[in-house]
Protein backbone atom coordinates (compact mmCIF):
# COMPACT_ATOMS: atom_id res chain seq x y z
CA UNK A 1 0.00 0.00 0.00
CA UNK A 2 1.43 3.36 -0.95
CA UNK A 3 2.06 6.01 1.63
CA UNK A 4 0.41 9.38 1.33
CA UNK A 5 0.78 12.57 3.27
CA UNK A 6 -2.89 12.96 3.98
CA UNK A 7 -3.96 15.72 6.35
CA UNK A 8 -6.03 14.87 9.39
CA UNK A 9 -9.09 16.32 7.69
CA UNK A 10 -8.84 13.53 5.13
CA UNK A 11 -7.74 11.21 7.89
CA UNK A 12 -8.02 7.74 6.40
CA UNK A 13 -4.36 7.14 5.75
CA UNK A 14 -4.31 3.49 5.04
CA UNK A 15 -6.75 0.66 5.05
CA UNK A 16 -5.22 -2.74 5.42
CA UNK A 17 -6.67 -6.16 5.73
CA UNK A 18 -4.42 -8.62 7.49
CA UNK A 19 -5.25 -12.09 8.67
CA UNK A 20 -8.86 -11.41 9.50
CA UNK A 21 -8.12 -7.92 10.75
CA UNK A 22 -9.34 -4.74 9.10
CA UNK A 23 -7.00 -1.94 10.13
CA UNK A 24 -7.10 1.80 9.60
CA UNK A 25 -4.38 4.35 10.32
CA UNK A 26 -5.41 7.89 11.22
CA UNK A 27 -2.42 10.22 11.05
CA UNK A 28 -2.25 13.92 11.72
CA UNK A 29 -0.76 16.38 9.28
CA UNK A 30 2.75 16.69 10.70
CA UNK A 31 5.92 14.75 10.08
CA UNK A 32 6.01 13.11 13.51
CA UNK A 33 2.65 11.46 12.96
CA UNK A 34 3.32 10.74 9.29
CA UNK A 35 6.56 8.96 10.07
CA UNK A 36 4.95 6.94 12.79
CA UNK A 37 2.10 6.07 10.42
CA UNK A 38 4.67 4.82 7.93
CA UNK A 39 6.10 2.63 10.66
CA UNK A 40 2.73 1.11 11.53
CA UNK A 41 1.96 0.64 7.84
CA UNK A 42 5.26 -1.20 7.47
CA UNK A 43 4.28 -3.39 10.43
CA UNK A 44 0.91 -4.26 8.88
CA UNK A 45 2.53 -4.93 5.51
CA UNK A 46 4.84 -7.50 7.09
CA UNK A 47 1.97 -9.88 7.69
CA UNK A 48 2.35 -12.92 5.44
CA UNK A 49 0.35 -12.80 2.20
CA UNK A 50 -1.36 -16.13 2.95
CA UNK A 51 -2.71 -14.73 6.16
CA UNK A 52 -3.79 -11.54 4.47
CA UNK A 53 -5.95 -13.54 2.05
CA UNK A 54 -7.99 -14.75 4.99
CA UNK A 55 -9.40 -11.32 5.74
CA UNK A 56 -12.57 -11.08 7.71
CA UNK A 57 -15.93 -9.48 7.59
CA UNK A 58 -14.95 -6.03 6.34
CA UNK A 59 -15.59 -4.27 9.62
CA UNK A 60 -12.64 -2.34 10.99
CA UNK A 61 -11.31 -4.02 14.08
CA UNK A 62 -8.13 -2.00 14.61
CA UNK A 63 -7.61 1.75 14.40
CA UNK A 64 -4.10 3.15 14.81
CA UNK A 65 -3.75 6.81 15.77
CA UNK A 66 -0.03 7.58 15.42
CA UNK A 67 1.76 10.42 17.20
CA UNK A 68 -1.40 12.35 18.02
CA UNK A 69 -0.88 15.91 19.24
CA UNK A 70 -4.06 17.89 18.62
CA UNK A 71 -6.81 15.48 19.63
CA UNK A 72 -10.28 16.86 18.99
CA UNK A 73 -13.63 16.21 20.60
CA UNK A 74 -14.83 14.77 17.29
CA UNK A 75 -11.90 12.37 17.16
CA UNK A 76 -12.62 11.17 20.72
CA UNK A 77 -16.29 10.70 19.91
CA UNK A 78 -15.55 8.76 16.77
CA UNK A 79 -12.99 6.52 18.44
CA UNK A 80 -15.41 5.74 21.27
CA UNK A 81 -18.13 4.98 18.74
CA UNK A 82 -15.86 2.54 16.94
CA UNK A 83 -14.89 0.90 20.22
CA UNK A 84 -18.58 0.42 20.95
CA UNK A 85 -18.74 -1.48 17.67
CA UNK A 86 -15.87 -3.69 18.87
CA UNK A 87 -12.78 -1.94 17.49
CA UNK A 88 -9.46 -1.80 19.31
CA UNK A 89 -7.51 1.45 19.09
CA UNK A 90 -3.75 1.84 19.34
CA UNK A 91 -3.41 5.44 20.42
CA UNK A 92 0.18 6.65 20.32
CA UNK A 93 0.56 10.05 21.89
CA UNK A 94 2.75 12.75 20.40
CA UNK A 95 2.03 15.00 23.36
CA UNK A 96 5.73 15.26 24.11
CA UNK A 97 5.98 17.45 21.02
CA UNK A 98 2.71 19.34 21.35
CA UNK A 99 1.95 22.67 22.98
CA UNK A 100 0.95 22.75 26.65
CA UNK A 101 -2.61 23.56 25.63
CA UNK A 102 -2.79 20.66 23.17
CA UNK A 103 -1.35 18.26 25.74
CA UNK A 104 -3.82 19.37 28.41
CA UNK A 105 -6.72 19.03 25.99
CA UNK A 106 -5.56 15.57 24.95
CA UNK A 107 -5.23 14.47 28.58
CA UNK A 108 -8.73 15.78 29.32
CA UNK A 109 -10.24 13.93 26.37
CA UNK A 110 -8.45 10.66 27.17
CA UNK A 111 -9.88 10.75 30.67
CA UNK A 112 -13.33 11.82 29.56
CA UNK A 113 -13.76 9.24 26.80
CA UNK A 114 -11.64 6.32 27.96
CA UNK A 115 -11.11 6.86 31.69
CA UNK A 116 -7.36 7.07 31.19
CA UNK A 117 -5.49 9.48 33.47
CA UNK A 118 -2.48 10.92 31.67
CA UNK A 119 0.30 12.87 33.37
CA UNK A 120 2.31 15.71 31.79
CA UNK A 121 5.00 14.66 29.32
CA UNK A 122 8.55 14.46 30.56
CA UNK A 123 11.78 14.35 28.56
CA UNK A 124 13.72 11.15 28.80
CA UNK A 125 16.86 12.16 30.60
CA UNK A 126 19.83 10.10 29.61
CA UNK A 127 21.41 10.83 32.96
CA UNK A 128 18.78 8.67 34.64
CA UNK A 129 20.05 5.76 32.63
CA UNK A 130 16.67 4.60 31.34
CA UNK A 131 16.87 4.32 27.57
CA UNK A 132 14.34 1.57 27.00
CA UNK A 133 10.68 1.08 27.66
CA UNK A 134 10.25 -2.22 29.45
CA UNK A 135 7.16 -3.90 28.01
CA UNK A 136 5.64 -6.69 30.05
CA UNK A 137 2.85 -7.25 27.53
CA UNK A 138 2.23 -8.45 24.79
CA UNK A 139 5.84 -9.59 24.97
CA UNK A 140 8.53 -8.89 27.53
CA UNK A 141 10.84 -6.64 25.49
CA UNK A 142 12.97 -3.55 25.90
CA UNK A 143 12.08 -0.96 23.24
CA UNK A 144 13.97 2.28 22.69
CA UNK A 145 12.37 5.48 23.97
CA UNK A 146 11.60 8.46 21.76
CA UNK A 147 12.85 11.58 23.58
CA UNK A 148 9.77 12.18 25.72
CA UNK A 149 7.25 10.01 27.50
CA UNK A 150 3.70 10.81 28.53
CA UNK A 151 3.12 8.65 31.59
CA UNK A 152 -0.17 7.49 33.03
CA UNK A 153 -1.97 6.88 36.29
CA UNK A 154 -3.52 3.55 35.64
CA UNK A 155 -4.75 0.48 37.44
CA UNK A 156 -1.94 -2.00 37.92
CA UNK A 157 -3.72 -4.53 35.76
CA UNK A 158 -3.90 -2.15 32.84
CA UNK A 159 -0.25 -1.08 32.71
CA UNK A 160 1.77 -2.96 30.11
CA UNK A 161 5.04 -0.99 29.99
CA UNK A 162 7.22 1.13 32.23
CA UNK A 163 10.15 3.48 31.97
CA UNK A 164 11.89 3.06 35.28
CA UNK A 165 9.05 3.29 37.77
CA UNK A 166 6.75 5.28 35.53
CA UNK A 167 3.86 3.57 33.80
CA UNK A 168 3.82 4.58 30.14
CA UNK A 169 1.60 2.16 28.24
CA UNK A 170 -1.75 0.64 29.07
CA UNK A 171 -4.23 -1.89 27.75
CA UNK A 172 -7.76 -1.01 28.67
CA UNK A 173 -11.07 -2.53 27.77
CA UNK A 174 -13.50 0.13 26.51
CA UNK A 175 -17.06 -0.87 25.55
CA UNK A 176 -16.91 -3.89 23.18
CA UNK A 177 -13.40 -2.95 22.06
CA UNK A 178 -10.46 -1.43 23.82
CA UNK A 179 -7.58 0.98 23.96
CA UNK A 180 -3.85 0.34 23.75
CA UNK A 181 -2.32 3.60 24.93
CA UNK A 182 1.34 4.19 24.03
CA UNK A 183 2.90 6.95 26.12
CA UNK A 184 6.20 6.49 24.30
CA UNK A 185 6.24 6.56 20.53
CA UNK A 186 6.64 3.17 18.91
CA UNK A 187 6.02 4.03 15.24
CA UNK A 188 9.37 5.70 14.44
CA UNK A 189 11.14 2.59 15.71
CA UNK A 190 8.91 0.46 13.49
CA UNK A 191 9.83 2.68 10.55
CA UNK A 192 13.50 2.18 11.43
CA UNK A 193 12.81 -1.58 11.57
CA UNK A 194 13.95 -1.97 15.16
CA UNK A 195 13.48 -5.70 15.85
CA UNK A 196 12.14 -5.34 19.42
CA UNK A 197 9.63 -2.68 18.40
CA UNK A 198 8.45 -4.80 15.48
CA UNK A 199 8.03 -7.83 17.76
CA UNK A 200 5.94 -5.87 20.26
CA UNK A 201 3.92 -4.19 17.49
CA UNK A 202 3.22 -7.50 15.74
CA UNK A 203 2.09 -9.08 19.00
CA UNK A 204 -0.25 -6.15 19.64
CA UNK A 205 -1.77 -6.55 16.20
CA UNK A 206 -2.13 -10.29 16.80
CA UNK A 207 -3.90 -9.59 20.09
CA UNK A 208 -6.32 -7.21 18.38
CA UNK A 209 -6.99 -9.77 15.65
CA UNK A 210 -7.69 -12.52 18.15
CA UNK A 211 -9.87 -10.33 20.34
CA UNK A 212 -11.81 -9.02 17.37
CA UNK A 213 -12.47 -12.51 16.07
CA UNK A 214 -13.66 -13.68 19.49
CA UNK A 215 -15.88 -10.63 19.69
CA UNK A 216 -17.24 -11.51 16.24
CA UNK A 217 -18.04 -15.06 17.35
CA UNK A 218 -19.75 -13.75 20.43
CA UNK A 219 -21.73 -11.32 18.32
CA UNK A 220 -22.94 -14.10 16.02
CA UNK A 221 -23.88 -16.28 18.96
CA UNK A 222 -25.90 -13.42 20.39
CA UNK A 223 -27.71 -13.02 17.10
CA UNK A 224 -28.58 -16.74 17.15
Amino acid sequence: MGLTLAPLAARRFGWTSVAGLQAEIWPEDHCLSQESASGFQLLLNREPPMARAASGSGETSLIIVPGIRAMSLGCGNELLGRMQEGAWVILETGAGYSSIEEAKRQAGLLERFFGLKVLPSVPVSKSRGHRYIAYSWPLPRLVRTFEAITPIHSNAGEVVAHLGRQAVCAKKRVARGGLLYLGSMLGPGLFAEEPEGLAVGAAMVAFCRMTASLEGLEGRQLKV
Partner: protein
Amino acid sequence: MGFSDGVKLLKRAGYDGIELWLGERPWFQMKTTDAEIRAMLRQIEDAGLEVSNVANALDWKENISARDPAKREAAFRHIERQIEAAQILGTDAILVVAGLVTEDTPYNEVYKRTVGTLQRLAEVAAKARVKIGVENCNAEQRFLLSPREFSTFLDEINSPWVGIHLDVGNIHDTGFAEQWIELHGPRITRIHVKDVLKHRGRCGDQSVYTNIFLGDNNWHAIREAMRKVNYDGWLIVEMESRYRYAADQQVYDASVALTRLIAGKI
Protein backbone atom coordinates in the same frame (compact mmCIF):
# COMPACT_ATOMS: atom_id res chain seq x y z
CA MET B 1 35.52 41.67 7.30
CA GLY B 2 32.35 42.56 5.44
CA PHE B 3 30.93 40.72 2.46
CA SER B 4 32.07 43.23 -0.11
CA ASP B 5 35.67 43.30 1.14
CA GLY B 6 35.62 39.51 1.39
CA VAL B 7 34.75 38.90 -2.25
CA LYS B 8 37.36 41.44 -3.36
CA LEU B 9 39.99 39.63 -1.29
CA LEU B 10 39.05 36.30 -2.87
CA LYS B 11 39.45 37.77 -6.34
CA ARG B 12 42.82 39.31 -5.50
CA ALA B 13 43.97 35.96 -4.14
CA GLY B 14 43.15 34.28 -7.43
CA TYR B 15 39.92 32.39 -6.77
CA ASP B 16 37.21 31.94 -9.39
CA GLY B 17 34.22 31.66 -7.09
CA ILE B 18 32.72 31.53 -3.65
CA GLU B 19 30.63 29.05 -1.67
CA LEU B 20 27.90 30.91 0.21
CA TRP B 21 26.67 29.59 3.57
CA LEU B 22 23.06 30.15 4.49
CA GLY B 23 22.79 30.97 8.19
CA GLU B 24 26.48 31.65 8.77
CA ARG B 25 26.81 35.41 8.37
CA PRO B 26 24.35 38.28 8.86
CA TRP B 27 24.10 38.98 5.14
CA PHE B 28 22.72 35.52 4.26
CA GLN B 29 20.08 34.30 6.65
CA MET B 30 16.66 32.66 6.31
CA LYS B 31 15.11 36.14 6.47
CA THR B 32 17.30 37.45 3.63
CA THR B 33 15.00 38.39 0.77
CA ASP B 34 15.34 37.44 -2.88
CA ALA B 35 16.20 41.06 -3.66
CA GLU B 36 18.97 41.03 -1.08
CA ILE B 37 20.35 37.78 -2.53
CA ARG B 38 20.34 39.39 -5.98
CA ALA B 39 22.25 42.35 -4.52
CA MET B 40 24.86 39.91 -3.14
CA LEU B 41 25.14 38.32 -6.55
CA ARG B 42 25.81 41.70 -8.11
CA GLN B 43 28.69 42.27 -5.70
CA ILE B 44 30.08 38.82 -6.48
CA GLU B 45 29.84 39.41 -10.22
CA ASP B 46 31.29 42.92 -9.91
CA ALA B 47 34.31 41.37 -8.20
CA GLY B 48 34.69 38.98 -11.13
CA LEU B 49 33.60 35.85 -9.26
CA GLU B 50 30.87 33.21 -9.54
CA VAL B 51 28.94 31.29 -6.90
CA SER B 52 30.19 27.71 -6.79
CA ASN B 53 27.32 26.42 -4.65
CA VAL B 54 25.16 27.20 -1.65
CA ALA B 55 25.98 25.50 1.66
CA ASN B 56 24.33 26.03 5.02
CA ALA B 57 25.39 26.35 8.63
CA LEU B 58 22.00 25.35 9.98
CA ASP B 59 21.98 21.57 9.58
CA TRP B 60 23.86 21.00 12.81
CA LYS B 61 20.98 22.48 14.82
CA GLU B 62 18.08 21.70 12.53
CA ASN B 63 18.63 18.41 10.75
CA ILE B 64 16.26 16.42 8.59
CA SER B 65 17.00 13.41 10.78
CA ALA B 66 15.97 15.10 14.05
CA ARG B 67 13.35 13.45 16.18
CA ASP B 68 11.80 16.79 17.03
CA PRO B 69 9.32 17.52 14.21
CA ALA B 70 9.81 21.28 14.58
CA LYS B 71 13.55 20.92 13.89
CA ARG B 72 12.90 18.51 11.05
CA GLU B 73 10.44 20.85 9.38
CA ALA B 74 12.81 23.79 9.85
CA ALA B 75 15.56 21.75 8.19
CA PHE B 76 13.32 20.97 5.24
CA ARG B 77 12.51 24.66 4.88
CA HIS B 78 16.11 25.86 5.00
CA ILE B 79 17.15 23.32 2.38
CA GLU B 80 14.27 24.46 0.18
CA ARG B 81 15.55 28.02 0.68
CA GLN B 82 19.06 26.92 -0.33
CA ILE B 83 17.61 25.55 -3.55
CA GLU B 84 15.76 28.81 -4.22
CA ALA B 85 18.89 30.82 -3.45
CA ALA B 86 20.97 28.62 -5.76
CA GLN B 87 18.59 29.41 -8.60
CA ILE B 88 18.85 33.14 -7.92
CA LEU B 89 22.63 32.95 -7.64
CA GLY B 90 22.99 31.03 -10.88
CA THR B 91 24.52 27.87 -9.49
CA ASP B 92 23.32 24.30 -9.84
CA ALA B 93 24.37 22.76 -6.52
CA ILE B 94 23.77 22.99 -2.81
CA LEU B 95 25.48 21.31 0.14
CA VAL B 96 23.61 19.69 3.01
CA VAL B 97 24.64 17.74 6.08
CA ALA B 98 21.98 15.06 6.09
CA GLY B 99 21.62 12.76 9.08
CA LEU B 100 23.09 13.17 12.54
CA VAL B 101 23.47 10.11 14.72
CA THR B 102 23.56 11.06 18.38
CA GLU B 103 23.50 9.28 21.70
CA ASP B 104 19.72 9.57 21.67
CA THR B 105 18.89 9.27 17.98
CA PRO B 106 19.97 5.85 16.77
CA TYR B 107 21.52 4.99 13.46
CA ASN B 108 18.65 2.98 11.94
CA GLU B 109 16.19 5.75 12.68
CA VAL B 110 18.46 8.44 11.23
CA TYR B 111 19.07 6.37 8.11
CA LYS B 112 15.41 5.78 7.25
CA ARG B 113 14.31 9.31 8.07
CA THR B 114 17.14 10.86 6.07
CA VAL B 115 16.52 8.71 3.00
CA GLY B 116 12.78 9.47 3.11
CA THR B 117 13.24 13.21 3.48
CA LEU B 118 15.90 13.43 0.78
CA GLN B 119 13.55 11.61 -1.58
CA ARG B 120 11.02 14.39 -1.00
CA LEU B 121 13.67 17.09 -1.36
CA ALA B 122 14.89 15.46 -4.59
CA GLU B 123 11.54 16.33 -6.15
CA VAL B 124 12.02 19.99 -5.19
CA ALA B 125 15.60 19.89 -6.51
CA ALA B 126 14.56 18.29 -9.79
CA LYS B 127 11.99 21.03 -10.46
CA ALA B 128 14.63 23.69 -9.77
CA ARG B 129 17.32 21.74 -11.63
CA VAL B 130 19.66 22.13 -8.66
CA LYS B 131 21.65 19.16 -7.34
CA ILE B 132 21.71 18.34 -3.66
CA GLY B 133 25.22 17.41 -2.58
CA VAL B 134 25.14 15.44 0.66
CA GLU B 135 28.40 16.12 2.45
CA ASN B 136 30.38 13.29 4.04
CA CYS B 137 30.91 14.72 7.52
CA ASN B 138 31.73 11.21 8.60
CA ALA B 139 33.23 11.70 12.02
CA GLU B 140 31.01 14.56 13.12
CA GLN B 141 27.81 12.92 11.88
CA ARG B 142 28.70 9.39 13.05
CA PHE B 143 26.86 8.40 9.88
CA LEU B 144 27.70 6.77 6.54
CA LEU B 145 31.26 5.98 7.47
CA SER B 146 32.29 3.96 4.45
CA PRO B 147 32.15 4.86 0.75
CA ARG B 148 30.19 1.69 -0.06
CA GLU B 149 27.55 2.53 2.50
CA PHE B 150 27.30 6.08 1.21
CA SER B 151 26.81 4.64 -2.26
CA THR B 152 24.00 2.33 -1.05
CA PHE B 153 22.42 5.33 0.65
CA LEU B 154 22.42 7.29 -2.63
CA ASP B 155 21.07 4.21 -4.44
CA GLU B 156 18.13 4.13 -2.04
CA ILE B 157 17.38 7.81 -2.58
CA ASN B 158 17.52 6.95 -6.26
CA SER B 159 17.55 10.40 -7.81
CA PRO B 160 20.01 11.98 -10.22
CA TRP B 161 19.40 15.20 -8.28
CA VAL B 162 21.01 13.90 -5.09
CA GLY B 163 24.73 13.17 -5.02
CA ILE B 164 27.72 13.58 -2.75
CA HIS B 165 29.50 16.80 -1.88
CA LEU B 166 32.80 15.12 -1.12
CA ASP B 167 35.08 16.56 1.55
CA VAL B 168 38.50 14.99 1.23
CA GLY B 169 39.47 16.09 4.74
CA ASN B 170 36.51 14.54 6.52
CA ILE B 171 37.46 10.91 6.08
CA HIS B 172 40.10 11.03 8.79
CA ASP B 173 41.54 7.63 9.62
CA THR B 174 38.52 5.63 8.49
CA GLY B 175 39.60 5.43 4.86
CA PHE B 176 41.22 7.17 1.95
CA ALA B 177 39.81 10.16 0.10
CA GLU B 178 41.03 8.94 -3.27
CA GLN B 179 38.99 5.75 -2.89
CA TRP B 180 35.87 7.80 -2.14
CA ILE B 181 36.50 9.82 -5.31
CA GLU B 182 36.90 6.68 -7.41
CA LEU B 183 33.82 5.02 -6.00
CA HIS B 184 31.48 8.00 -6.34
CA GLY B 185 32.81 9.49 -9.60
CA PRO B 186 29.92 11.06 -11.49
CA ARG B 187 27.82 11.41 -8.36
CA ILE B 188 30.23 13.99 -6.92
CA THR B 189 28.58 17.41 -7.05
CA ARG B 190 31.46 19.45 -5.57
CA ILE B 191 34.71 18.77 -3.68
CA HIS B 192 35.78 20.41 -0.44
CA VAL B 193 39.54 20.60 -0.14
CA LYS B 194 41.33 20.61 3.16
CA ASP B 195 43.92 18.51 4.89
CA VAL B 196 43.55 16.37 7.97
CA LEU B 197 45.84 15.37 10.81
CA LYS B 198 44.65 11.79 10.92
CA HIS B 199 46.22 10.83 14.20
CA ARG B 200 45.48 13.91 16.23
CA GLY B 201 41.84 13.31 17.11
CA ARG B 202 39.73 16.11 18.45
CA CYS B 203 40.91 17.37 21.80
CA GLY B 204 39.42 20.47 23.32
CA ASP B 205 39.44 23.20 20.70
CA GLN B 206 42.21 21.64 18.65
CA SER B 207 41.06 20.95 15.14
CA VAL B 208 42.03 17.85 13.20
CA TYR B 209 41.81 19.93 10.03
CA THR B 210 44.58 22.00 8.58
CA ASN B 211 45.69 23.70 5.41
CA ILE B 212 46.30 21.76 2.22
CA PHE B 213 49.68 19.95 2.21
CA LEU B 214 50.12 20.24 5.99
CA GLY B 215 48.25 17.06 6.91
CA ASP B 216 48.12 13.36 6.05
CA ASN B 217 46.05 13.31 2.86
CA ASN B 218 47.82 11.77 -0.12
CA TRP B 219 47.43 14.65 -2.57
CA HIS B 220 49.08 12.80 -5.47
CA ALA B 221 46.53 10.02 -5.09
CA ILE B 222 43.64 12.46 -4.68
CA ARG B 223 44.63 14.35 -7.82
CA GLU B 224 44.99 11.13 -9.82
CA ALA B 225 41.60 9.91 -8.65
CA MET B 226 39.97 13.18 -9.71
CA ARG B 227 41.57 12.78 -13.14
CA LYS B 228 40.49 9.15 -13.34
CA VAL B 229 36.82 9.98 -12.80
CA ASN B 230 37.09 13.09 -15.01
CA TYR B 231 36.11 15.43 -12.22
CA ASP B 232 36.19 18.93 -13.67
CA GLY B 233 34.00 20.78 -11.17
CA TRP B 234 34.72 23.21 -8.37
CA LEU B 235 37.40 22.62 -5.74
CA ILE B 236 36.41 24.58 -2.67
CA VAL B 237 38.98 25.27 0.05
CA GLU B 238 37.61 25.04 3.55
CA MET B 239 39.68 26.07 6.54
CA GLU B 240 38.69 25.30 10.08
CA SER B 241 41.94 26.32 11.78
CA ARG B 242 42.56 29.96 11.07
CA TYR B 243 45.78 31.88 11.07
CA ARG B 244 46.15 33.70 14.35
CA TYR B 245 47.85 36.63 12.64
CA ALA B 246 47.47 38.11 9.17
CA ALA B 247 44.24 36.22 8.52
CA ASP B 248 44.12 37.25 4.89
CA GLN B 249 47.46 35.50 4.32
CA GLN B 250 45.71 32.15 4.77
CA VAL B 251 43.41 32.98 1.88
CA TYR B 252 46.42 33.68 -0.35
CA ASP B 253 48.33 30.61 0.82
CA ALA B 254 45.39 28.31 0.25
CA SER B 255 44.94 29.74 -3.23
CA VAL B 256 48.56 29.09 -4.16
CA ALA B 257 48.32 25.53 -2.83
CA LEU B 258 45.12 24.94 -4.77
CA THR B 259 46.72 26.27 -7.95
CA ARG B 260 49.63 23.85 -7.53
CA LEU B 261 47.25 20.96 -6.85
CA ILE B 262 45.29 21.74 -10.01
CA ALA B 263 48.48 22.12 -12.04
CA GLY B 264 49.95 18.93 -10.64
CA LYS B 265 53.01 20.72 -9.29
CA ILE B 266 53.17 18.84 -6.03
